[in-house]
């Protein structure tokens, strides 16, 4: 085969190849060498990023409708199934290209950040191996040209998320969080696999169709196929095949992207190292779910005419699940004090936005928000990691200064409101002076998340979703209106809890000694001095280097990605500003050819924009009013708690008891049922019993054989052996050690031989 690997048709293979290669190299080769593993992993993703950029540039260069019609891509035969063949292939259409802008870049930055964050961990090489595999799987999923290959990447990511969340496997909570994530997503994945299988079967039933296929090109860009699926009756009465498949696929996303009611795994997922959280929340895992439904949108929306506000079951499903998740998660985020958990709920909430946007047909907006969210959420998570690092350092430092370590019990299993001390925003305060770069970058990310008007990326993408909902809600259709209201409330709360988080962490005075001494690093201390108008002397520098020369490098490695991401958290949104404002919407023009039927652009309306501005600013303002105006002092009750009352607050902190509900009414009964029915009834009383009777029969037979063996065979063998033994005992007496006797025997033998020879000659 003559392949030009640098043509756009084959380049996607290389993009996914290099991280996977890094994984193999690290696992098989450099697992003992941390630095080499770092280099290999970063080199792998770095090459991948460069190739992605090349591909993206090519796609942009070709930014007209032809890329939608003729995607880049190539495929090989993978598995022959009788008359049919599974083909594995890659494709790059505008949507993929847009994802390739985000995924490798965010991953690369997370990798660099990890090199600093994971410094000193005994299993750092393993960590990088998993990260590489994680990214490789995500890239596989992104460039896949069929649903099966996408599903492979999907599942590998499931495994990687399990491994990475439970990376500190000696910690029981981490291990359980890993299991929880894996099991929860597994529930959804099984349903999704059923959907994929059903889709595969249905495509084969179409007359004059392409035959059994899962290829995106064959299904999504084939109008007759979509029509056939919509009209085909499914196995469940009253629903079309398209509906059934869509619901199953969306369920997969509900698990993967952590939508209500399967959202419970994501908040626990931050038991893993912070770069993993950044990875899961931004670049890979949860994005994959949304990416999948964005990708499958033509199928999901088949039969609906949402431009004229006619929706189908799948879209209702998405819209309701998404908006409920968006608001619910935002509400939950308000009640959290763990900085990472706040961000986790915000992720769930934002993913809810995207799913809800798809539910009302805002396809471009969903993709837009997906990428923007990835940037600022990666930024926020890495910044929070930096904060945690600083707090841990501060704790050690405080201990050196005479403040005793606080020994905290780690949760054994599912403890709802546990918050690890360095993560607790109540224990922070005043960190702006200790870690200014982190504070500033986090502020940028937070503003983007909150949708600070006109400047930030988050504003533009979120605004587009709200605008679309507004557009639908204008027609007094209750469904878009419901979505709109939910999303607006969610946006308000998002701005509020973002402000709360930031002010609690960085504003005011330090509330604990740990916060007072937080934050190492040359750059940070230099900034601290600069901020406090103190000269940074050479002595200080020497002291720092003496204290911890390695941490300085880690700190630097952790801060560079923050600054890079800050840039994207702001500018990422500018490519998608509505064309009525700036005259051209390049993102929309670029993405639109992906779909067979180009999505219409909702006419610009100033009202929703104003509303969203007000909501965002209102939320931020409320946050400032409660937390920024007079910063929380040590020991003071949270103002929100005071406003809501302890009952609701406790409920919020316990995540509305959903997790406990699951535990008590699903997990435990299931466990009990498994114990009773499967273990005792089926396994022990039926299978074991029958096995035991077989075993008893076998034992009896064995006894019989044994008796035969002892008496007959052993008797024979023993007699032989004893005979040989006694003969040997008698015979060994000739070995007297007397050389002359031996010689006598030799001579006798010689004589015998000679006589024999003579007789023969005769």
């Amino acid at each position, binding site marked *: 085969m003559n392949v030009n690997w640098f043509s756009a048709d084959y380049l996607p293979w290389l993009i996914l190849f290099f991280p996977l290669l890094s994984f193999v190299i690290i696992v098989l080769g450099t697992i003992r060498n941390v630095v080499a593993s770092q280099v290999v992993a970063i080199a792998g993703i770095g090459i991948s990023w460069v190739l992605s950029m090349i591909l993206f540039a090519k796609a942009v260069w070709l930014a007209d409708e032809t890329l939608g019609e003729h995607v880049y891509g190539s495929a090989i035969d993978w598995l022959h199934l009788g008359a049919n063949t599974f083909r594995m292939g890659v494709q790059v259409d505008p949507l993929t290209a847009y994802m390739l802008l985000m995924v490798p870049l965010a991953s690369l930055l997370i990798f660099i950040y990890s090199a600093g964050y994971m410094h000193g961990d005994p299993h750092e090489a393993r960590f990088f191996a998993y990260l590489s595999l994680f990214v490789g799987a995500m890239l596989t999923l992104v460039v896949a040209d069929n649903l099966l290959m996408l599903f492979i990447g999907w599942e590998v990511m499931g495994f990687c998320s399990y491994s990475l969340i439970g990376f500190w496997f000696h910690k029981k909570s981490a291990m359980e969080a890993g299991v929880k994530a894996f099991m929860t997503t597994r529930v959804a994945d099984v349903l999704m696999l059923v959907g994929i299988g059903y889709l595969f079967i249905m495509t084969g039933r179409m007359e004059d169709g392409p035959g059994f296929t899962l290829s995106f090109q064959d299904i999504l860009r084939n109008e007759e196929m979509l029509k056939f699926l919509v009209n085909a009756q499914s196995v469940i009465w009253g629903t079309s095949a398209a509906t059934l498949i869509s619901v199953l696929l969306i369920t997969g996303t509900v698990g993967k992207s952590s939508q209500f009611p399967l959202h419970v795994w994501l908040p626990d997922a931050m038991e893993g190292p912070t770069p993993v959280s950044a990875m899961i929340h931004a670049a890979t895992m949860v994005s994959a779910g949304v990416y999948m439904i964005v990708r499958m949108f033509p199928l999901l929306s088949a039969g609906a005419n949402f431009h004229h506000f006619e929706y189908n079951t799948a879209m209702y499903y998405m819209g309701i699940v998404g908006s409920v998740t968006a608001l619910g998660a935002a509400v939950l985020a308000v009640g959290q004090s763990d900085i990472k958990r706040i961000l986790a709920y915000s992720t769930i909430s934002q993913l809810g936005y995207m799913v809800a946007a798809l539910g009302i047909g805002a396809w471009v907006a969903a993709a837009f928000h997906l990428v923007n969210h990835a940037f600022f959420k990666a930024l926020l998570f890495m910044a929070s990691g930096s904060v945690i690092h600083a707090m841990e350092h501060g704790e050690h430092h405080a201990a050196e200064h005479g403040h005793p370590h606080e020994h905290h019990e780690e949760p054994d299993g599912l403890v709802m409101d546990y918050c690890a001390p360095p993560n607790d925003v109540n224990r922070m305060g005043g960190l702006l002076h200790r870690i200014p770069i982190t504070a500033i970058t986090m502020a940028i990310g937070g503003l983007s998340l909150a949708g600070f008007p006109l400047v930030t990326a988050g504003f533009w993408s979120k605004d587009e979703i709200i605008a679309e909902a507004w557009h639908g809600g204008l027609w007094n259709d209750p469904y878009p209106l419901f979505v709109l209201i939910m999303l607006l409330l969610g946006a308000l709360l998002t701005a509020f809890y973002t402000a709360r988080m930031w002010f609690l962490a960085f504003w005011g005075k330090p509330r604990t000694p740990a916060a007072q001494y937080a934050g190492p690093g040359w750059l940070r201390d230099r900034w601290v001095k600069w901020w406090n108008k103190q000269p940074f002397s050479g002595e200080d520098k020497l002291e720092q280097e003496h204290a911890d020369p390695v941490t300085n490098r880690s700190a630097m490695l952790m801060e560079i990605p923050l600054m890079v991401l800050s840039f994207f958290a702001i500018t990422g949104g500018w490519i998608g500003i509505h064309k009525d404002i700036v005259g051209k919407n390049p993102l929309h023009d670029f993405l639109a050819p992906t779909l067979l039927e180009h999505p219409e652009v909702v006419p610009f309306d100033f009202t929703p924009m104003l509303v969203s501005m007000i909501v965002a600013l209102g939320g931020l303002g409320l946050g400032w009013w409660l937390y920024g105006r007079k910063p929380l002092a040590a020991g003071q009750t949270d103002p929100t708690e005071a406003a809501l009352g302890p009952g609701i607050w406790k409920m919020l902190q316990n995540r509305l008891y959903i997790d406990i509900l699951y535990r008590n009414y699903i997990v435990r009964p299931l466990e009990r049922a498994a114990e009773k029915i499967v273990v005792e009834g089926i396994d022990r009383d039926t299978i074991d019993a029958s096995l035991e009777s077989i075993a008893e029969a076998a034992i009896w037979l064995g006894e019989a054989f044994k008796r035969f063996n002892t008496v007959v065979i052993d008797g024979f063998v023993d007699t032989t052996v004893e005979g040989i033994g006694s003969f040997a005992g008698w015979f060994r007496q000739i*070995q*007297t050690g007397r050389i002359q006797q031996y010689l006598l025997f030799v001579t006798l033998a010689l004589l015998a031989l000679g006589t024999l020879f003579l007789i023969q000659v005769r």
Partner: protein
Amino acid sequence: MIPLWMYLVVAAGLFVIGMFGVLSRRNAIAILMGIELMLNAVNVNLVAFWRYQTPTKLSGQAFAAFVFAVAAAEAAVGLALIIGIYRRKRSVIADDVNLLKW
């Protein structure tokens, strides 16, 4: 001239005498002497056959020469062993060195 078989019979006698010495003498040095006698018997045979059967081909003489070399080596190592054993056990009786048995 003397027929070949006379040489052979003398050699056989020498060999048998040496063999008896090897088999019967208790002293290790005497055993070694017996071995020398046997080797000499073989040499006589070799040379006699060379003389009577193939006087133009020197195989017999060459083999006798090699027997000399082997005998010299055997005597040197054998006597060294005997003296070593004597130093250790104060005995050169072959039957006293019978540790290697069942």
